[in-house]
């Protein structure tokens, strides 16, 4: 941590110009050459000269309101603002003259005369641009003073000198749990308003009134920050040059003294942050300007919701117990490791080599995941490893592997800036990938068109200054039919890109595919009856996608979590190939990954059939690499996937599990089956930061470390390997990779890693697509997108540029097969699931932060018609039942969902949404069919029997006895 120096993150005042034409000018006697369109302020900053400024910031368009950044230009009249004046060839600029000094002092004097002078006790003391500028311009006294009796002309004193309340004074708004808004300190520079518009795209803030009366306000007149549209992304807080918008943590702790660059541990966007510290206390997280995925932006989760790391529920000591009915016993690390290893060894002796296995985590680092799969392959000597990515993106791996030859997205996030048409299907970036969502919305505001394919009118559908061109509100489970109908229109209306197909794809396979999709039964008219989407909409969307310029597809779990998830991914790849939308900026096929390291956990060989780098265990050459590196023989047969482990456990052949950083009892479908599987095992080892739901069935608990407590890497949805850095010592003594190593050694291995960089070296040595990856390279470049090897030493932002990885792109027929999960008289509605912005996955982390103010329970969205039929009113308790089970939650009546469809999230364990979901799964990968379950909804009085039983069992199982 000490040896890493954060690169230049000065504020250049205005955004960089993208122009290729260069202009040379002179500033204060120095020549500088910058792209055309650059502001004088930025050009000066390039020279190292910081012109005083208040309203400018290089992530916002210049505004020109504070008049502090004035300069003089030889031969021009007046004193133009350097932030709004572009450079011109040959001009001679002066940033510091007698006249400028006078003017700036005057401006500052006015500002300060209407600003409280409680700097010493202000939360922004030492981190305030107003303070800095007063110093920079040499302000030494303020001559304006209020008359002793009578009206005050200021905004900051609660009372006038006469003693009466000052009508201009507004109280502090404390409503947001993470930051305060103190209007008396506002200088109305507009930065917050612009940040909310330009960076975040929420438009929650406005300036009301004019001149002296102008005020920043969140939402409508009666709103505060919490009740307004504000999504608490923090962009305005970062933008504010004063203490007006300030993090509560800074007010509470004080300003940070050092910072460490790291990566958010929440979602697959992979935002980089500066963890700003005071000693080993985390003061705040500031999105890092040079983070290539986020460019200085963040969402509420990464920016603020880190409090779980210090939550009192964290388990800090290892624990064991003989049976799941016993209370937990706290023990030393040694005891826990020996206990776990002895039990696992005994199981293998008694029930065979295949009787135990592991689950790797999509939240842990690449290095940790690599070690866990190595544990099973090299120490347990089987391939029984799987990951939670199974339950979300395994169809992506299969579908893109079959058609393109790689299992990953084709673009980087920056590509969205060149996109003209975005087809968003089964994804809600607004909530699940907020920072990418903001970037997409920005592009949409600037004219790109949106085609939304989703059963629900999600938050993406419309926003300030844009609205989807088409919303295909399909019935859950009919993705493949709709995607094939889109292809039908493109093929029959001859909108395909023949030149691209001829050079890049297999022409015979295309012919076959063309015959298939051209069949009348795939036409939008033919499928309308069961997809519920008007044919004209489908035709319009297909034409727009094929002819609207650069078209990019962004998809999420709404595509993959179906019985035909893999077919749908193939259908998406077909669309991109048909229209030549592959291999350049602005296009492509982009899976949006759920958890922070879903990509990485797949890359690292978490799946039972493949070694790191997506190489099947059946290949002797691949096995040979690892047999040589690890000195053991590798099993050539694929191992057990999570559902297989559970089935085998119920059958009595699978007995022991080491589960790192996953909560399968809550996240996997058909909770009752998962519970039965876990209960049948004789040794379940849970390695996590909290006693999660799975731990109710565990015999050993290894306390885990948060991303703040360890070094390593995460790989985001753009294949970008980002650094995670330790900012504080592990609270439970060891980083997760150390625990896995100690456990492996207790099982008889002899591993001696002393730092995760050595694990990465082993990954690079054995995996061709990672061959060029080292910690050194990631540090120098900031991040690296794999493949990174001899051919691409700096990594690969776009793949399939000159040809597909597999050679020729492969068109594959995509026959729609209706899921077996059908509505009928008992279960007439279709349930689909999703997530919301402020909560993350099963919520173990976010529920333990103040984010609960935005979402304190899961609710069931139901259409007014369906609600009325059942006599359900807004906020009622309802019983939600499927053939698997039932649960209760509150109803939210909304026409965001179509009649016949209901929707809920699964962030709270009390809801137990997965009691409802079934064990149906994707045909190719067994990715569970979360997105379609036939259900019935009825009024209810309160929690279901299962919920009560479950809670009783959980309470019993969570008892802990402290070590003597």
């Amino acid at each position: 941590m000490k040896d890493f120096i954060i690169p230049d993150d000065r504020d250049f005042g205005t955004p960089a110009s993208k122009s290729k034409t260069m202009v040379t000018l002179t500033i204060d006697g120095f020549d500088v050459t910058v792209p055309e369109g650059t502001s004088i302020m930025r050009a000066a900053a390039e020279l190292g000269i910081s012109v005083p400024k208040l309203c400018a910031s290089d992530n916002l368009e210049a505004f020109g309101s504070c008049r502090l950044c004035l300069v003089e230009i030889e031969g021009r009249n007046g004193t133009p603002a350097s932030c709004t004046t572009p450079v011109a060839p040959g001009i001679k600029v002066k940033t510091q003259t007698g006249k400028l000094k006078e003017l700036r002092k005057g401006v500052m004097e006015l500002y300060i005369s209407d600003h409280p002078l409680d700097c010493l006790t202000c939360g922004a003391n030492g981190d305030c641009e107003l303070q800095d500028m007063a110093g920079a311009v040499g302000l030494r006294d303020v001559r304006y003073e209020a008359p002793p009796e009578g009206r005050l002309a200021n905004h900051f004193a609660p009372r006038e000198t006469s003693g009466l309340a000052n009508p201009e004074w507004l109280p502090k708004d404390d409503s947001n749990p993470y930051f305060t808004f103190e209007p008396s300190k506002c200088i109305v520079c507009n930065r917050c308003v612009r940040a909310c518009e330009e960076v975040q795209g929420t438009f929650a803030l406005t300036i009301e009134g004019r001149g002296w009366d102008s005020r920043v306000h969140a939402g409508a007149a009666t709103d505060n920050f919490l009740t307004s549209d504000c999504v608490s992304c923090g962009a305005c807080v970062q933008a504010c040059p004063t203490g007006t918008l300030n993090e509560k943590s800074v007010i509470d702790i004080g300003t940070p003294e050092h910072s460490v660059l790291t990566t958010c541990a929440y979602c697959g966007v992979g935002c980089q942050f500066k963890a700003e510290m005071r000693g080993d206390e985390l003061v705040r997280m500031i999105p890092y300007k040079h983070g290539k995925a986020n460019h200085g932006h963040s969402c509420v989760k990464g920016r603020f919701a880190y409090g779980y790391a210090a939550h009192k529920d964290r388990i800090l000591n290892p624990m064991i117990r003989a049976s799941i009915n016993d209370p937990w016993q706290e023990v030393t690390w040694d005891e826990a490791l020996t206990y776990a290893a002895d039990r696992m060894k005994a199981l293998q002796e008694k029930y065979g080599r295949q009787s135990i296995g592991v689950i790797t985590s999509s939240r842990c680092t690449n290095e940790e995941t690599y070690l866990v799969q190595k544990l099973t392959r090299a120490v347990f000597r089987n391939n029984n490893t799987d990951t939670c990515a199974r339950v979300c993106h395994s169809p992506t791996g299969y579908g893109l592997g079959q058609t393109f030859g790689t299992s990953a997205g084709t673009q980087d996030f920056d590509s969205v800036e060149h996109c003209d048409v975005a087809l968003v299907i089964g994804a809600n970036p607004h909530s699940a990938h907020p920072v990418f969502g903001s970037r997409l919305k920005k592009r949409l505001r600037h004219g790109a068109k949106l085609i939304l394919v989703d059963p629900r009118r999600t938050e993406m559908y419309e926003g300030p200054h844009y609205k989807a061109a088409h919303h295909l509100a399909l019935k859950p489970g009919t993705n493949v039919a709709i995607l094939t109908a889109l292809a039908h229109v493109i093929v029959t209306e001859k909108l395909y890109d023949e030149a691209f197909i001829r050079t890049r794809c297999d022409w015979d396979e295309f012919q076959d595919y063309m015959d298939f999709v051209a069949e009348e039964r795939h036409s939008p008219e033919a499928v309308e009856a069961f997809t519920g989407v008007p044919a004209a909409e489908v035709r319009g969307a297909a034409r727009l996608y094929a002819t609207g310029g650069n078209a990019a597809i962004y998809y999420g779990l709404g595509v993959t979590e179906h019985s035909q998830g893999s077919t749908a991914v193939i259908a998406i790849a077909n669309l991109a190939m048909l229209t030549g939308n592959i291999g350049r900026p602005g296009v492509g096929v982009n899976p949006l990954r759920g958890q922070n390291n879903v990509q990485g956990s797949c890359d690292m060989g978490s799946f039972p059939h493949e070694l790191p780098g997506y190489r099947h265990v059946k290949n002797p050459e691949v096995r040979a690499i690892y047999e040589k590196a690890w000195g053991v023989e590798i099993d050539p047969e694929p191992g057990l996937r999570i559902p297989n482990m559970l089935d085998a456990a119920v059958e009595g052949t699978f007995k022991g599990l080491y589960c790192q950083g996953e909560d399968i009892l809550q996240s996997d479908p058909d909770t009752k089956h998962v519970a039965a599987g876990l209960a049948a095992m004789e040794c379940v080892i849970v390695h996590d930061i909290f006693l999660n739901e799975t731990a109710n069935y565990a015999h050993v608990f290894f306390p885990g470390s948060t991303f703040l407590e360890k070094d390593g890497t995460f790989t985001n949805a753009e294949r970008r390997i980002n650094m995670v850095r330790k900012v504080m010592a592990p609270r439970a003594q060891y980083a997760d990779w150390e625990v896995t190593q100690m456990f492996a050694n207790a099982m008889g291995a002899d591993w001696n890693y002393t730092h995760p960089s050595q694990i990465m070296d082993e990954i690079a040595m054995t995996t061709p697509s990672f061959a060029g990856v080292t910690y050194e390279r990631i540090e120098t470049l900031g991040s690296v997108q794999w493949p990174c090897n001899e051919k691409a030493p700096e990594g690969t932002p776009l793949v399939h540029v000159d040809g597909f990885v597999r050679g020729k792109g492969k068109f594959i027929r995509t026959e729609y097969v209706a899921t077996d999960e059908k509505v009928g008289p008992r279960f007439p509605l279709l349930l689909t699931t999703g997530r919301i912005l402020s909560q993350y996955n099963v919520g173990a982390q976010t529920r333990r932060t103040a984010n609960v103010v935005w979402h304190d329970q899961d609710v069931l969205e139901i259409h007014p018609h369906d609600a009325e039929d059942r006599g359900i009113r807004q906020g009622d308790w309802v019983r939600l039942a499927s053939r698997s089970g039932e649960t209760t939650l509150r109803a939210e009546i909304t026409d965001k969902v179509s009649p016949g469809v209901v929707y809920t999230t699964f962030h709270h364990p009390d809801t137990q949404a997965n009691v409802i979901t079934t064990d149906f799964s994707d045909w190719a990968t067994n990715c569970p069919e979360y997105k379609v379950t036939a259900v019935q909804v009825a009024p209810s009085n309160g929690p279901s029997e299962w919920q009560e039983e479950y809670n009783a069992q959980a309470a019993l199982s969570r008892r802990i006895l402290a070590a003597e």
Partner: protein
Amino acid sequence: MSANTAEKIIRMANQIAMFMETKPHEEGLAGLANHINDFWEPRMRTQLFALLDQGGAGLRPLVIEAAGRIRRPQAA
């Protein structure tokens, strides 16, 4: 093998068959066998063979036809 397990194996094999049936016959046949060889661990293949050996009732014809190309696990 419980009825439940049999039902699951049949459903999963048939799901794969339905996708492979849309390909040219030979490709689909090979595709189905390879898919099961690549992704189904020995325990599941043993269960599949138990069904196939009894005539494969409930399995789609393509699965039955592909049986010869699916790797039969050694008896444990």
